[in-house]
């Protein structure tokens, strides 16, 4: 049921002239994809620095909240551009992407990373004054930072794997793969 709704939506997007125009435009599509990858440097780069500070691996003599708050704005800016260009990439190739197992895993990991970030900020803001100057953040925040790095590594890896057609629906996949990819049409 859900797969049919998702596929109908993807086919509706695919029927729009702008979708195929973007997909077929050599420069426009490549510019969008390049911007998506380059803004990863801004977003993930800032996230790395914040998480490494929480883990006590960099800038340990600077209060953790200063590092997190000062780098939050460029990180959100990078994420915003990355998100918009990501939507455009989906819009350009909607049917294949909807039925990509890697895209689906990436989507789940993105939601998990978002929830983890929300919990992380909540915990950080609750009692930051008590540990702000410590070289290492308290255990729950360290776990949150490590989980954040792991989830984003997963997002990057699965994002890269979308380009590979190993498990595309036209292939002779196992039932599990076909179910996970939501294969309804080739």
């Amino acid at each position, binding site marked *: 049921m859900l797969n049919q709704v998702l596929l109908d939506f993807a086919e509706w997007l695919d029927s729009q002239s702008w979708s195929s125009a973007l997909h077929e435009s050599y420069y426009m599509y490549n510019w969008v994809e390049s911007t998506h990858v380059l803004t990863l440097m801004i977003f993930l780069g*800032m996230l790395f620095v914040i998480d490494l500070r929480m883990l006590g691996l960099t800038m340990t003599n600077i209060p953790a909240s200063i590092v997190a708050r000062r780098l939050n704005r460029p990180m959100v800016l990078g994420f915003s551009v990355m998100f918009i260009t990501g939507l455009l990439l989906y819009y350009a190739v909607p049917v294949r992407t909807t039925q990509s197992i890697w895209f689906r895993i990436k989507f789940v990991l993105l939601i998990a990373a978002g929830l983890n970030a929300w919990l992380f900020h909540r915990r950080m803001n609750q009692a930051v004054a008590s540990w702000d100057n410590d070289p290492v953040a308290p255990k729950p925040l360290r776990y949150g930072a490590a989980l954040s790095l792991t989830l984003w590594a997963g997002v990057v890896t699965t994002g890269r794997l979308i380009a590979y057609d190993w498990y595309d629906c036209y292939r002779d996949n196992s039932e599990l793969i076909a179910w996970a990819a939501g294969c309804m049409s080739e």
Partner: protein
Amino acid sequence: MGWGAVDLLPFFEWMETNLLGQIGKSYGGVYAVGQSLHLMSLAMIGGTVLVTDLRLLNVVLRDVPSEVVVDNAHKWFKLALTIILATGIFMASAVAIRMYHNPFFWAKMFSLFVGIVFVFAIKRPLLRGKHSDISPLVLRTVAVASLMLWFTVAATGRWIGFS
């Protein structure tokens, strides 16, 4: 193509036939993991370069001494550079002959070489001391040059895949 009179094609042919090239060619999954590590180290280089240069330009972390930011970022930059070079050699080995004929590959190699020389021969020696002793104009020029250089490295690298 090559440097001066030296034709590097035989070297690239050897790269594609050696063990590293064969692993990359034969195991798509291993190659993809290499690509993913390459991307993550690119992100880390981006993060360390941006934090350093935006601090020198007084855009971020203005209440943190720039020496602290620069020194801490440089340690992680070196690690990321090591991973990106290792994974880059692995990836290029699998498609070495195609890379040899790709102008964007050479553009990236050149900008990467300039970037590395810039960091280790100019930026790092200059920023090792107290930044208050250095003219703000020099600091800003170094930061802008660094941002432009590493942006070029990343952009030309991304365009290798499109050409």
